[in-house]
């Protein structure tokens, strides 16, 4: 049998994006969040997740794409023992894909995309979350 992985697909801007479900802790609705003055553009703010204070990232800044900036949900991931929320416009769902169907991304897109997969005639860009977050960290100077 072909090797399958599960991906969480969400919409950000005009495109669909996917992350490996194993990298995702949970998905939560964004109700309230607090702006952090002086924060770089890719940090939308902080919010309360069961008593923990979690930064909310706007990765459209990092991906250099246009988004509608109407964030409704956050994909919670863990990085370096800390939880981080990635703001998305809409979570579409979880899908099973065959690993062999993932095509490599053109190199000019950048190294934050691990591959592209076709799902019901829609292109989904698979994100390298770790790379993106480390880019954020470099950018923040931490």
């Amino acid at each position: 049998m072909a090797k399958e992985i599960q991906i969480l697909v969400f919409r950000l801007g005009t495109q669909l994006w996917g992350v490996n479900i194993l990298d995702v802790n949970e998905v939560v609705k964004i109700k309230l969040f607090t702006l952090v003055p002086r924060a770089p553009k890719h940090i939308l703010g902080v919010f309360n997740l069961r008593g923990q204070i979690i930064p909310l990232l706007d990765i459209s800044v990092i991906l250099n794409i246009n988004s509608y900036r109407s964030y409704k949900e956050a994909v919670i991931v863990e990085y370096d023992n800390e939880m981080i929320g990635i703001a998305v416009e809409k979570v579409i769902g979880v899908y099973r894909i065959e690993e062999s169907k993932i095509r490599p991304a053109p190199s000019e897109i950048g190294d934050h995309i691990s591959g592209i997969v076709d799902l019901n005639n829609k292109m989904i860009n698979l994100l390298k979350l770790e790379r993106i977050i480390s880019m954020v960290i470099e950018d923040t100077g931490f």
Partner: protein
Amino acid sequence: MVGSIDKEFLEIFIDETLEYINEMEYLISKLQEQPNNKEIINKLFRILHSLKGNAATIGLDKLAHVSHKAEDLLDLIRRNQIRVTKDTITLLYKVLDYISKAVNELSAGKSISSPEEVLLEIEQVIKQATNFSEDKGENINRNIDDEKALQKEGLLESNDVKKMQQSTQKYQQGSIINNIDIKELNEDITDSASCLGILDFTESEKIKLAEAINKGLSIYCIILKFRDPTFITFRYFQALQRLGEVGDIIKSIPSGSDVLKMKTDTISIIIGIKKLNDLKDAIREINDLVDHKIMRISINDLNIDLNKVSIDIEGDRLSALENIIKKIEEYGEEHKSLTEPEPTKLKKLQEVRINVRSLDTLFNLVGELVLIKSRLLSLASQYDIQSLKEALTTFERLVNELQNEIMLMRLVPLHYLFRRIPRFANELSEKYGKQLDIYYEGGEIALDRKVLEELSEPLFKIIEILVKDDIEKPDVRVMKGKPSVGTIRIYAYREGNRVIITVESDGKGLDSEEVAKRAVELGLVPPSSIGKLTDEEKLMLATLPGFSLRNNEFAGLDKIKHSIESIGGTIEIYSKTDHETKITFKIPVSMATLRALLIKLKDQIYAIPVSSIITTMKLNVLNSAGNINVIKYQSKFVSVHDLARILEIENKRKNKNYIVLIEKRGKYIGLLVDEILGQEDIVVKPLSKLLSKIKGFSGATILGDGKVCLILDPISLL
């Protein structure tokens, strides 16, 4: 190899070894002060012995090997074949370094690096020492002697499983010799009818037995006959208590629960003891005794196969662990139900290892409870429900108690940091060619473990700066008429909710004029601003980023200041040229809760710690002096800044009506805000690491409505 070790097992090992490292560090530094103190050497020996056993149990051969060699080294020290010199201490530190490195590698999931270097060094020292020793036979038999010596002193701990197996065999060799000494007592126990069934052991008793033998205890059967069966229960407990003080009780007939039902005047006890005389003394102290019998039981007479017991354990580590836990539980229950337990043994049972992470989670949850509490309180007063209010009063008290208790759980004594000082000082004095005496006190003062963690770096850095740049070289000191050995004193004490830690040295000192001149020279402050500063303010210029005196002296104070401030502390510098230099840290015991003033700015609420607020006031007239706004407060002019502008927030609201007057390093500054909401106790939570580089915030808290509120840090704000 590492992969095959049970992860949980490894975690326990790492935890324990870290404790050992801490203890060893302390002991080695003590040994340096008292090179002839046998007790310290024995303690070190024992730690290495345990470490060796533990490491061998989980297959960490390199670590086991190094511990074993170090143990040999200590043994030679103990026998006065190696003297404790500076080189010996350095070597011991090298061993310690290797062990710490290995543990770090283990926790990082890497494999342990080769111990060859450190082994070689130990080997050399041992070889030198043994060459002097003429008695070569002794050296060959050393290991066996050693175990026996340990057994006699009762130093052997049986906390690992593999060792059990090894030393049971060793014991059997040794017991032949011992048997001669107690020949008179060696009656044939199986003939004695009064202890029928005493030699039938249950599984748990077999483990106890194996453990006792492994500890090097000799096994005896005691039969006690009392005068009057009426008081037997009481006498029974008394006897067990007294005997428990001199040895490990393995079983008794009747058992603790049976004695209440049975009317008998005779008790049989199996006990493992170190010295026969102790046992005899103990029996003499038991009241109401008509007759007693003491019988030595040789291992061969026991109906159990000890090897089988230990092989079972070796074969299945998990079940071994379970057995040990069961044993501890049984032990605890037995002793609880019988008599007053031995304090040292019970202490172990009263302490439980808690993962730091779950402690943090608990702490977070209690923080949430505190928030819910205030939400409920405000609801109760809003709807004015009397019965709810009453219930909430109790609830409030309980939550406060809970919060306090958890806060206490997180406190760790300063010892953990201070213990590392002597060694660090040694390295420094060697590195910089200074002679140094270092004293510290106040190690018993406890701080939140997070604060303690953060304190480590600035504290050690400041010691290094003082040794390097303040204490003069010995010849210079002599020329100045000072003792050639410099002194550094570190003392800590508690003052309210803060801990004051002072580091003081008697070196050449910092001259405030020189600092000010240098700061101007480096372009850190405009020359015009110097004139007005006090001496203390001038000294504080040394904490500006980029500051150093010539030859890079006193560089890095800015980093220290930053670390201290990040845990909510402050730093003060005092110096008298050629007399003393004193750096004082004032840090909060816990970063947990804070009294804060809540203010509003462009529809978002911020908290300002009350500790840095002087007063608040309504704005009437704002005077402009040039382009700086000023107000008059207690006949002083204070500059006023728009908080929104400082925070780079667009705020078009015109009616900023309030001023919060804060103090920043002795200077008053007014902050213009939209609204003042009132004071509240807030639970401080750390901001994500992602946000740690953003200046102006010391953390965040969660408000009653669940929204996150940022805590302003006046010091890094401006």
